[in-house]
């Protein structure tokens, strides 16, 4: 498959084929993922849902090269000029406690060969994007959980990734903060047009945010359902179509996990 066969943008930005991941401990082999195929079109907001232990997070870890797959390929169609094609927002913010907020956001840029003033200017712009411009000089321990996660999002966006990976980023937050951040992510996505791979176990969160929901189920994890959420944005949480989509997905999920 060569790039010239297709018009630009038609190739998926991420093309996962036959991906498997297993590890061996004490002579026992545990399979986390098995022959997974998944193509993510550029600009899509893809949400991966599933129970804990189906390998959702593992999939993101493979993409960002924190875990080695035991089989299959991952092909990225990212621009050669992109220094950091993907950036990950962890479930817990994982800010570096010895860096002030601004320097936490600038962290990933230190690989990009930019002068410090430029890094700080970019970091400040990202903080503004997540609405925390005033907190640039704070230490992480002075922030609330929601603020910390916003800083983590700004840190990921600062390296200008083409794909933003988010690993249950809001699951540790209270529901009020969570809804605020969901809206925030939706707004940032609309503003930047980035491809987003978002992992969650919360179906309501999935349908609210997603263009497409992929359900992982079973052990080892396989794709059990792949559902497009064709609803206009901005969405309303209490929208009947949205609630119906969530109901449908729940039914699908329980049917599939009963089958597997």
């Amino acid at each position, binding site marked *: 498959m060569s790039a010239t066969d297709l018009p630009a943008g038609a190739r998926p930005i991420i093309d996962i084929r036959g991906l498997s991941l297993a590890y061996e401990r004490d002579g026992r082999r545990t399979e986390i993922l098995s022959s997974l195929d998944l193509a993510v079109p550029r600009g899509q907001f893809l949400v991966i849902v599933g129970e804990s232990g189906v390998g959702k997070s593992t999939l993101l870890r493979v993409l960002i090269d924190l875990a080695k797959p035991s089989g299959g390929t991952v092909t990225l169609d990212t621009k050669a000029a992109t*220094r*950091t094609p993907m950036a990950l927002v962890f479930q817990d913010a*994982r800010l*570096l406690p010895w860096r002030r907020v601004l320097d936490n956001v600038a962290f990933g840029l230190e*690989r990009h060969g930019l002068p410090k003033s430029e890094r700080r200017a970019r970091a400040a712009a990202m903080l503004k994007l997540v609405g925390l411009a005033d907190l640039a000089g704070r*230490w992480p321990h002075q922030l609330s959980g929601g603020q910390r996660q916003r800083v983590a999002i700004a840190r990921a966006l600062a*390296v200008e990734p083409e794909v933003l990976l988010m690993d249950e980023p809001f699951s540790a937050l209270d529901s009020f903060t969570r809804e605020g951040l969901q809206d925030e992510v939706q707004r940032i996505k609309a503003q930047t047009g980035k491809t987003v791979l978002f992992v969650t176990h919360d179906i309501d969160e999935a349908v609210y945010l997603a263009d497409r929901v992929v359900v992982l189920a079973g052990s080892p994890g396989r794709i059990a359902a792949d559902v497009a959420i064709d609803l206009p944005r901005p969405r309303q949480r209490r929208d009947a179509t949205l609630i119906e989509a969530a109901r449908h997905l729940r039914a699908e999920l329980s049917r599939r996990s009963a089958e597997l």
Partner: protein
Amino acid sequence: MTSFRSVALAAAGLAAFLALWEAAPRLDLVNPAFLPPPSSLPAAFAREISGGAWPRAVAESLSHYVVGLGAGAGAGIALGLLSGMFRWFESLTAWVVRLLRPIPGLAWVPFAIIWFGVQPSAAVFIIAIGVFWIVFFATQGAVRGVDRDLVEVAQAFGFRGPFARLTKILLPAATPGILVGLRTALGQAWMAVVAAEIFGVPGIGARMMQASSLLSTDIVVVYMLTMAGLYGLFDTGFVALQGWLLRWRA
């Protein structure tokens, strides 16, 4: 009020201690030549300063202290980092460490004299050895204890080499633990200073031995208090530095 009370009690305790100390030789309970009363110390101190012995001894000891501390701590941090970062390095050195670690710093005095002579470098060597082990183990433990999740953050952002891992994550994250070791070493090094100088390298320890052989016990006490004062000064300065370096902590 409680803090005022405790300060008042501490002052009263010190006053009682000094009074007892003053009374013992004056009431002839002990020979004043063996225990000089505190009231005799200011004059002895003035003599030592005007004769130039005090500034010289202090300058010499401080230079041994600072150089020995720097060398021992530098080597301890460097090897501690290596050992904390690389399992193979830890394994390689495991038995050598086990062999050398239990040898007290002072047991190196004969070799210090043979290798360096009765020279400042011998004192520096003795001080550095004592400091080295404390800082080495503190650093190794601190690096080993760094949250793996933070190392992953660095990896996820593409900092994958050992040098980047060290400078971006391990060193800053291990700093609190390293500083605890350094503070212990700061005290340990003072003890080593006297010990190292007592065998003749010029400095506070040597001056004390000289004075004691002349039965000038008041001068001995002046230097004992000098050491207490200098240590207090260093420790206070270090605690301030530590507070500043760790200002990011809650």
